[in-house]
């Protein structure tokens, strides 16, 4: 369809061979001369105050090198997570660290240290804190509202009746802190011929990336070298510098490979700064490898929802109004903001005529929450799917049709401000998926065979998928090699490499002539966006595009300067700049680069644009004189919301006797504009599918409300889906229609890939159970068994962080 040289073509990312051979280095694989090993002591109490630390038992122990406590590190302003704290707000909150010659000795020391902690009131369920007389997760209050008008703690209590009514499925009448909406809600419901109204719960759960976040650090002539487990590269620097209390120029981040992030390593997190502080204190390199259990504690988790939603549908299935209220479980550090994003997702994916979002973010003494693959969008996707089915049944419309009729398209306006979208082809995605899946045929087949029931589900996923204003940097050296500098982190999506191919495309060069400079600040990287929110592809194909265009323009100018004529007389191809009228009048890229060094100024990087980020400026300064520099900030036009969209069709065979189901067929379709990297998109769609399967079936936080203990601290209990919990085949496809606001038509896809999966499964389970809506994730076998047996569920309505 296009005749690109690189865009839309598969390739071998340079780091993948290291991954299959074990040569790829992750933070914990680095060793430094004289390095010592640190271990953490974390809080055994959900909320408390450290009143004494007794380390006397360590006296005379061999191999102990040092102890780091909260007094040795900067205090963070509440509710932000601390590096180390004397006021733990969740079980697992880091209190101190010990460094020793080897990990066992460090653990021996940890085992002997006595920490005296005075317990404080705690809560593990937002509604337990919201109810009058209920405990607050922090002494400052039980609610933390983040907003542009100013953030702050609040104490909000609902009456017992209000909580009871909420649990009973009635519209919440308690106080809320966030509200937005558009259109005439009342009219919307008045025009509706069918109204569905349901309470819902989505339990949060841990990210549990494969690599427990390790960091190693040492100081070398004033700079702190940090070997970290980072989702983003350049984006980490400002935060890391702040945590280490140094200037950005004095931080070197080495992050060649990262064992997964999923939102939990977007920016520099406090614990990544611990080795730096420890190393400063004891004067030796320090590596902190945390345990899997500690990764559960510190490694962040998805925000939980307890909510209520009401939607009105016109006879043709069009959504006339949507009203949603969400109580957010934001953990102790007030991270998240998923609620409003969920509202935004409703407005974009289902485009209600009118809508209102109300929310109250409540603090709990559970693990800190953070962005997790589709934060908000994916929780609400799971909630919405069975409700769309319910409405379709009541309206007697096909479940595919009701989604098509509400599908987001190029004319849809979204969010409170009713902004336009850059482009959106959900209808096309649905049609493609329905066709691959064979929706019409499958929905006609008989459902029931003994105790086995077939369930068909459709899910839709969304996340905004792009940003602008970041920098691109390319460099051509006299040897003709094209250096593509990527400040994009390597968390496993290969977008660090995929996005540089935009520059290769513009420079019309072979991939073999390109070298990607990445993985360490010292590779002189440009300022980059975070590698999250599905933004990298849109954002950094643009950044690489503008940098490459800058390089091309400079090459033409140099050619004109050396060979005569005007820059406009020249064009590039085959690693040559040539005169369009007299192609023999040409210079190789190498010669151009050599000439650029002689000319200096903007050509060699001695001069650079003012509007690029200080990080990019520093890189250019270091690179100046080493070749021809193409550097620019992405100032290309950008209007409206950039949607990453996906839909999924799933067929399950549910066993009514065991409550288990097998996924017989899964089709995921990506709508991410032009596909830049087909294998990459497929990988994201498949990975997202598995994440959805985990959220739908097994993954959840479980806390004992009596003592605040977490039940699911290990990989085993967390219920990460395995090979045998996922289908034997996963089929994916992409719509592949270009987005007008990206030079290559590309948008991102990482997060919608999951939302469509969990939604499709919720839809399929409901379908298998004659439209029963659990209104809850996960739906575990016991819930299905109890439902089929006509028994009460074990938990009370809207209970969360429970079995």
């Amino acid at each position: 369809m296009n005749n690109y040289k690189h865009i839309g073509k598969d390739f071998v990312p340079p780091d993948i061979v290291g991954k299959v051979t074990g040569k790829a280095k992750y933070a914990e694989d680095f060793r430094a001369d004289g390095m010592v090993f640190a271990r953490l002591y974390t809080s055994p109490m959900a909320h408390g105050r450290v009143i004494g630390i007794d380390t006397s038992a360590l006296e005379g122990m061999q191999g102990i090198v040092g102890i780091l406590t909260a007094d040795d590190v900067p205090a963070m302003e509440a509710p932000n997570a601390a590096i180390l704290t004397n006021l733990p707000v969740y079980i697992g909150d880091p209190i101190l660290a010990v460094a020793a010659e080897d990990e066992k000795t460090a653990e021996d020391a940890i085992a002997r240290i006595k920490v005296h902690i005075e317990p404080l009131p705690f809560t593990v369920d937002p509604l337990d804190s919201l109810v009058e007389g209920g405990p607050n997760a922090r002494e400052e209050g039980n609610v933390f509202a983040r907003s542009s008008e100013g953030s702050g703690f609040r104490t909000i209590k609902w009456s017992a009746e209000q909580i009871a009514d909420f649990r009973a499925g009635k519209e919440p009448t308690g106080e809320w802190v966030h509200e937005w909406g558009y259109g005439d809600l009342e009219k919307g419901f008045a025009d509706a011929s069918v109204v569905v109204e349901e309470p819902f719960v989505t339990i949060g759960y841990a990210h549990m990336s494969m690599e427990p976040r390790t960091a190693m650090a040492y100081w070398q002539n004033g700079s702190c070298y940090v070997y970290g487990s980072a989702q983003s590269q350049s984006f980490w620097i400002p935060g890391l510098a702040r945590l280490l209390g140094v200037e950005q120029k004095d931080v070197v981040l080495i992050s060649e490979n990262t064992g997964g992030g999923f939102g939990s390593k977007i920016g520099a997190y406090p614990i990544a700064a611990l080795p730096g502080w420890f190393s400063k204190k004891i004067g030796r390199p320090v590596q902190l490898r945390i345990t899997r259990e500690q990764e559960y504690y510190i490694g962040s988790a998805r925000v939980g929802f307890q909510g209520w939603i009401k939607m009105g549908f016109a006879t043709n299935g069009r959504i006339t109004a949507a009203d949603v209220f969400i109580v957010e479980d934001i953990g102790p550090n007030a991270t998240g903001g998923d609620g409003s994003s969920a509202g935004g997702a409703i407005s974009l994916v289902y485009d209600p005529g009118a809508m209102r979002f109300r929310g109250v973010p409540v603090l709990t003494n559970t693990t800190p929450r953070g962005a997790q693959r589709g934060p908000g969008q994916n929780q609400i996707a799971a909630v919405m799917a069975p409700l769309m089915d319910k409405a379709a049944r009541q309206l007697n419309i096909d479940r595919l049709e009701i989604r098509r009729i509400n599908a987001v398209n190029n004319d849809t306006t979204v969010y409170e401000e009713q902004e336009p979208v850059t482009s959106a082809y959900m209808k096309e995605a649905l049609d493609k998926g329905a066709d691959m899946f064979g929706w019409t045929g499958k929905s006609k087949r008989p459902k029931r065979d003994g105790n086995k029931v077939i369930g068909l589900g459709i899910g839709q996923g969304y996340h905004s998928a792009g940003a602008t204003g970041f920098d691109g940097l390319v460099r051509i050296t006299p040897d003709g090699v094209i250096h593509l500098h990527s400040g994009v982190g390597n968390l496993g999506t290969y977008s660090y490499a995929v996005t540089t191919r935009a520059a290769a495309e513009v420079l019309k060069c072979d991939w073999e002539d390109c070298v990607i400079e990445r993985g360490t600040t010292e590779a002189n990287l440009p300022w980059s966006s975070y590698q999250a929110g599905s933004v990298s592809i849109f954002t950094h194909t643009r950044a690489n595009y503008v940098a490459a265009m800058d390089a091309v323009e400079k090459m033409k100018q140099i050619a004109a300067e050396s060979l005569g004529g005007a820059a406009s007389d020249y064009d590039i191809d085959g690693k040559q700049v040539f005169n369009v009228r007299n192609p023999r009048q040409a210079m190789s890229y190498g010669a151009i680069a050599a000439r650029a060094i002689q000319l200096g100024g903007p050509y060699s990087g001695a001069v650079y644009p003012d509007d690029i980020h200080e990080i990019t400026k520093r890189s250019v300064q270091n690179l100046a004189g080493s070749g021809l520099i193409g550097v620019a900030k992405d100032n290309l036009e950008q209007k409206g919301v950039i949607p990453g969209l996906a839909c999924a069709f799933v067929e399950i065979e549910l066993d009514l006797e065991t409550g288990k189901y097998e996924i017989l067929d899964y089709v995921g379709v990506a709508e991410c504009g032009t596909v830049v990297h087909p294998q990459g998109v497929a990988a994201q769609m498949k990975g997202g599918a598995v994440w959805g399967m985990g959220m739908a079936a097994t993954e959840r936080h479980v806390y004992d409300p009596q003592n605040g203990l977490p039940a699911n601290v290990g990989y085993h209990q967390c219920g990460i889906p395995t090979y045998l919990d996922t289908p034997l085949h996963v089929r994916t496809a992409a719509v592949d229609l270009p987005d007008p606001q990206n030079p290559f038509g590309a948008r991102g896809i990482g997060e919608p890939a999951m939302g469509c999966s969990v939604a499709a499964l919720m839809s399929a389970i409901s379908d298998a159970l004659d439209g029963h809506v659990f209104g809850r994730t996960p739906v575990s076998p016991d819930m299905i068994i109890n439902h089929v047996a006509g028994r009460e569920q074990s938990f009370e309505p809207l209970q969360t962080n429970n079995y």
Partner: protein
Amino acid sequence: MASYDVMPDVQLFQPASIDDALNLAERYGRDGWILGGGQDTYGWLKDRAKQPKAMIDLNGIESLRGIRQRDDGVEIGATTTLREIMRDETINADYELLALAAGRVASPQIRNAGTLGGNLVQDARCWYYRRGLACYRAGGNICYADSPEGMNREHCVFGASRCVAVSPSDTATAMVALDATMVVQSVDGERQLPAARFFKGPDTHITQMTALRPGEVLTAVRLPSSWAGSRFYFEKVADRNVWDFALVSIAVALKIDDGIVSDSRIVCGGVACTPHRLRHVEKALAGKAPGAETAELLAPLASEGAKPLNYNHFKLPLLENLLRRALRA
């Protein structure tokens, strides 16, 4: 409660003969840890929740490994791996129930290293207990799981006595269903127990899962020929199909003479602190023909006498359903 994951100091013995092993077991008593595949050992030790002075590794003892024919059945050495059992011809031919059960244990790598002995004597999986809390089972004076708001979805519905943990072993149910004999040795000699008396509940043995005394080693199990080639059924329902322990499992052996059940063993896992034998169902089944009708008739008996906790009453219908399936099959 700190979190650890490095093996702490502990002595390791790798005796080559059973006598050396028994002497070490005697010498160390409660401070000795008998090591099979180690798959339920290293976690305890890394967590420092159990702190034995020495590990006594049985894997170097040839006589404890392998599957041997006997005139009254087969004998399986305690350190025979689950992988070897799954792949053994005799077992698959005559005692498929055990092969099926072994095949549903944890994960391939754990089955590759894990031994039958280790799988049979493995410790309870109650998450409170595994956290290293000083509960009844850990010698304390309280149960955290069986409390007004305790998170006890995976706990027992039968045979609780202060502790409400369940028997996690997949092969234990098969052992009881096959009337296996457990061969236990110590420096004082050998004793043999029927599987049904090998597994102990908290009413009598609250801090251990089996009748093994300090210094004793489970060296082999014997499967009698009486159940060889019976009609077997094994099913395990767990949240995930890898790693996870049974929410409820069932191991069934039926002797059928011209279409009529003459004798049967019906044993359930995940519902009691020991493999839970449904004797009353076995009685009721005698003289009936297996099939949908009998299944429907007897299924409700399965959960008789069950006392569910806050979060596990789903185990009652699940147990009934598994019995239904077993008798229908």
